[in-house]
């Protein structure tokens, strides 16, 4: 069977593995056969409710079996799944529902009540609620959905959008990255290939499915007929317990989790005999943690990888090069072209540095409803024209150096986007929220390096003559931002902020002064 779309990944297991466990969460288990039956029944119900190919359906749930069922039911219909991370705030949820005109939302009772109270659900037609649906408009309870049913036979094609993954750039609100079935299947093949996944694998599902990398935890297992052990909390002691209780063989996590897990294992060494490999992505693991990693996880293969929401699964540092290339992003995966482009020199060679540019099937389709922003990073490349003509490539915004063996090393971001705990934060989104509080006249948000989280958000605020209400501002941020976005430090700027030639606040001068004061 040729696999073209997400749903094919489940169906492919039915002839031989219908009774095999596909998903585990605590004591609950779901077989491939049961998963297919539930997804089919839900797809039939969605179709009855008017959901069609291309429609957007959102899911905003804590890690659960239901989240996976919804994802594949939506894919079965050829509709587009929009997974809104459970860490996002209600205003961000509202933005996303509105931005891509979501027709139907799956969430839990608590979030639905909060969102409805804030008026965030006005744009959607219907709601499915885990828990009681009473008191909510146009809501159906998950338990009241039909247990069986057959969706129309027609299937999407691999060029159809399968999902929108919301992420931030250097400006504005989060944008939805348009991802096709082909993008997801291609990434799935690549990851399963470099991790040597097989039917015997049981991988820990820790990373949120709102990120493509998280979704790939599920799709790689379904591709190879393995099992996903969903892990709802990122506490080191609980992760170790799950790995041993459920015989987990592989695990993916962001650097922030690896830092915590390594620190934990250094104090409380634990044997995890079932664990075959671990893998990291979404930023740099600090060198002190990298150095300890093989010692606290003896015999475990370590795969450090790089990729973006816009172009996923790009490079990998294989375990056999972990020691001599420690800290490197690795080399391009199979079926991926990576070029390092410098504006003057063009394509860079060994010893040179420039912007990492992706070319190939991994390049997604840009940002939903925002052709202008799309055109900035998804465009043709003059330097590559002799090789690929006017094909669209993806400019990553990451400046990297290439060494004499072709391994890539991260140097810096080309823009001002802040990366905290694996999440991208836009400085202007932070600034807009702080402005709306009415507690500051001018505000500048910026990222500051942090040993654990990669970067943290700092803001500089001026109230021009008035005293800044720090407690009030902190409270406002906590209520209106997801936790990863809340400023860790508020710098109070006395008097007016310096103005640059354009008449706007001189951001660079403000940031440099704050950083200088920090060092004192």
């Amino acid at each position, binding site marked *: 069977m040729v696999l073209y779309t997400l749903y094919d990944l489940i169906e492919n297991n039915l002839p031989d593995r219908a009774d095999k466990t596909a998903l585990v969460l605590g004591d609950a288990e779901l077989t491939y056969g049961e998963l297919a039956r539930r997804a089919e029944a839900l797809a039939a119900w969605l179709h009855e409710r008017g959901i069609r190919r291309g429609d957007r359906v959102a899911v905003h749930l*804590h890690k659960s079996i239901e989240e996976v069922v919804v994802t594949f039911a939506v894919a079965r219909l050829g509709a587009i799944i929009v997974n809104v991370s*459970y*860490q996002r705030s209600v205003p961000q949820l509202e933005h996303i529902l509105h931005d891509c005109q979501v027709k139907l939302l799956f969430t839990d009772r608590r979030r639905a009540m909060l969102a409805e109270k804030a008026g965030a659900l006005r744009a959607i037609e219907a709601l499915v609620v885990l828990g009681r649906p009473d008191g909510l408009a146009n809501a159906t309870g998950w338990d009241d959905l039909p247990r069986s049913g057959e969706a129309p036979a027609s299937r999407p094609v691999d060029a159809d959008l399968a999902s929108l993954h919301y992420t931030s750039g250097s400006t504005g609100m989060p944008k939805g990255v348009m991802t096709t079935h082909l993008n997801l299947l291609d990434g799935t093949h690549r990851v399963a290939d470099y991790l040597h996944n097989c039917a015997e694998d049981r991988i820990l599902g820790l990373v949120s499915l709102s990120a493509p990398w998280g979704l790939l935890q599920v799709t790689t297992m379904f591709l190879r007929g393995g099992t996903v052990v969903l892990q709802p909390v990122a506490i080191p*002691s609980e992760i170790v317990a799950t790995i041993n209780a459920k015989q987990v063989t592989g695990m993916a996590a962001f650097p922030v989790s690896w830092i915590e897990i390594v*620190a934990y294992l250094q104090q409380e060494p634990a044997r995890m005999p079932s664990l075959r490999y671990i893998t990291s992505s979404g930023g740099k693991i600090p060198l002190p943690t990298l150095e300890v990693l093989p010692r606290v996880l003896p015999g475990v293969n370590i795969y450090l990888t790089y990729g973006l929401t816009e172009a996923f699964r790009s490079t990998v540092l294989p375990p056999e090069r972990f020691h001599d290339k420690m800290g490197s992003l690795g080399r391009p995966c199979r079926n991926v072209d990576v070029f390092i482009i410098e504006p003057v020199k063009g394509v860079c060679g060994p010893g040179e540095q420039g912007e990492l540019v992706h070319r190939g099937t991994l390049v997604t389709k840009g940002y939903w409803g925002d052709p202008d922003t799309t055109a900035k990073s998804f465009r043709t490349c003059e330097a590559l024209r002799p090789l690929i003509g006017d094909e669209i490539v993806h400019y990553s915004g990451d400046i990297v150096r290439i060494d004499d063996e072709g391994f890539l090393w991260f140097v810096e971001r080309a823009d001002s986007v802040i990366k905290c705990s694996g999440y991208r934060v836009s400085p202007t989104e932070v600034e807009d929220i702080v402005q709306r509080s009415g507690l500051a006249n001018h505000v500048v948000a910026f990222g500051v390096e942090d040993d654990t989280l990669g970067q943290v958000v700092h803001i500089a605020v001026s109230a021009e003559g008035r005293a800044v209400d720090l407690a009030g501002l902190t409270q406002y941020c*906590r209520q209106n931002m997801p*936790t*990863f976005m809340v400023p860790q430090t508020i710098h109070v700027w006395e008097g007016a902020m310096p103005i640059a030639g354009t008449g706007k606040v001189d951001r660079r001068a403000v940031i440099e002064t704050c950083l200088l004061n920090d060092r004192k």
Partner: protein
Amino acid sequence: MKLPDAPARMRSEGAPEGTPGKGRRMALVRNALIDYILSTFGLEEGELDDNTVLFSDGLLDSFCMVSLISYVESEAGITFRPTEVNLDNLDSVARILAFVERKSG
């Protein structure tokens, strides 16, 4: 576990809570704990009672756990060992209070 400070660490005056000196045995008061969780994590009254599940259903995330642990440690004058940072000890107000009582007793 290496943990960052509370979400908004302010260098200027006007920090909302003082930090009691380490090592002193202090009491963790139930109502104060509930007030702390409600106000710090932006929850609404009525959303939280002694047995509300805090972490395993995603009501609070790992950022909140870091702040909550710092708060409990400074209020109760105890320190969590890495293995004690788990759901049995942290997943509800009742569990936190029971842990603190065991630890102080």
